[in-house]
């Protein structure tokens, strides 16, 4: 759905944020993007929906080169939610904010269905009549995400969705990502939360200085010995496996228990 071919982006200040990047994002996968601040993550997101146009190379979204298409147009294919909800919210009620997204999106089902579904997915029914600005930051973030989810864009891009979320918010957002995976919708998540990537990702890329440094399935990438070089910690499970010097990394508590039992018996 999104294709980056030999893409570089240099800011007017001369900072080369993305270097000769090749990447394909397909509908139906949960792609997680990790990396140090300044590694190029937020520049890459802005290339996905045409807010930035590549300095060299080409970005195509749904077959169209983004160079000639406005971000508003591309948002029907790539729905991008930034980290800071306060840059987005402007309606008096949560329900109005979300239905704005539903009305401005596209999709096979109608706006009312998309609205209902987004409200339910983000657990917003009980705050539907509240003013978004009377809610706490973590709730405002859920409202901002719901509004983009309601657009029904085939690919949803989330920038640091679980940052500052409480237990309930984290569960709701994890469910949202898993729901999109299960329904065959695309989802790109930029995050520092390595354990979230461990739980939800189909594929992980790690950016470093504007280039793809590591790429692969979470089990191989999130325990890679090169990971710390990119300023990213291994997942908790990988750290445990490495700390116990297990011969292979474990994925679940069951596998861990099995390994520990075997070690006991030796």
């Amino acid at each position, binding site marked *: 759905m999104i294709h980056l071919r030999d893409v570089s982006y240099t800011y007017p200040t001369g900072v080369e944020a993305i270097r000769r990047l090749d990447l394909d994002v397909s509908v139906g996968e949960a792609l997680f993007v990790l990396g140090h601040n300044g590694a190029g993550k937020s*520049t890459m997101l802005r290339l996905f929906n045409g807010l930035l146009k590549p300095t060299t190379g080409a970005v195509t979204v749904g077959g169209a080169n983004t160079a000639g298409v406005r971000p508003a147009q591309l948002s029907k294919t790539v729905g991008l939610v930034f980290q800071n909800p306060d840059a987005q919210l402007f309606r008096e009620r949560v329900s109005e904010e979300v239905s704005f997204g539903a009305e401005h999106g596209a999709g096979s089902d109608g706006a009312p269905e998309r609205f209902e579904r987004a409200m339910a997915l983000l657990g917003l029914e009980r705050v539907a009549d509240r003013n978004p600005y009377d809610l706490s930051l973590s709730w405002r973030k859920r409202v901002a995400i719901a509004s983009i989810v309601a657009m029904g864009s085939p690919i949803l891009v989330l920038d640091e969705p679980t940052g500052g979320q409480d237990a309930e918010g984290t569960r709701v957002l994890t469910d949202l990502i898993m729901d999109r995976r299960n329904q065959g919708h695309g989802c790109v998540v930029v995050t520092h939360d390595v354990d979230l990537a461990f739980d939800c990702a189909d594929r992980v890329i790690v950016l470093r200085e504007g280039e793809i440094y590591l790429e692969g399935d979470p089990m191989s990438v999130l325990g890679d010995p090169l990971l710390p070089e990119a300023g990213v910690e291994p997942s908790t499970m990988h750290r445990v496996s490495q700390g116990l010097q297990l011969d292979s990394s474990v994925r679940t508590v069951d596998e861990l228990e099995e390994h520990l039992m075997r070690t006991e018996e030796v």
Partner: protein
Amino acid sequence: MEAGTNTWSRARVAALYEIGNTWLHRVHPLTKLAAVLPLSVAGFAGDTIRVPAVLLLAAVITLLVSRLGSIVLKSLRLIAPMTFALFVIHGVVRPYPSEPIASWGPISINAEGLALAGTTAARLAVFVVAVTAAMATVHPKIFATALIQRGVSHKLAYAYLAGAELLPEMRLRAAQILDAQQSRGFDTRGSLPRRFRTLFALLKPLLVSSLIGVEMRTLALESRGFSRVGTRTSAAEVEDRGRVLQRLLLAAAVPLIVLAVVW
């Protein structure tokens, strides 16, 4: 905060101040400020462009000789759009009883209009160059310290300092909001009503996010003794001098005002 810092590096840090050690930098900040008044008033002496033009020329030459040409450029950038507007309004748009010196269809250029525009622009330029030269050669903090020394409220000094930083901060917020709104399907182009709607969607988050920021900033300032009563000091020691000269400069404005009125 990655998005924030990134956008920030795209936004320029607006600051008039230029580091340097010219003679103008060494003049006490309030002396420079005091000199702005008689200079700008003198520009209004006489009905013609003569006095402001001479003052302007003298100021520009002085700045160039002092290796402060960048101040001339900065002033020019501020003056240029206003000068253009003045020439359009007075020279072209405004009707005059006398014959135009040239005309193309509905557009006609009038000599009186041009002269008026030129004089007004020159007067304005004297003021802008004087203020820019005064402010670009003093660090804002030194300026604020000098003001507080002379009894100006520290809250006013804060407003001055924060005001100088407001523009880049607003620009940063606006850039974030513009990105977010375009990403949710707002088109920044299109029909007039649509653009108005877009403007609203941009302004509301700008206002609200600024207010949220303001609340936190208010508390943070409170934590730093902002509303504490009592004397204040400054880590940047500014020698309190030039009081006589400053009074003389301010006093010089009086005969100049008289001159400007009667000439």
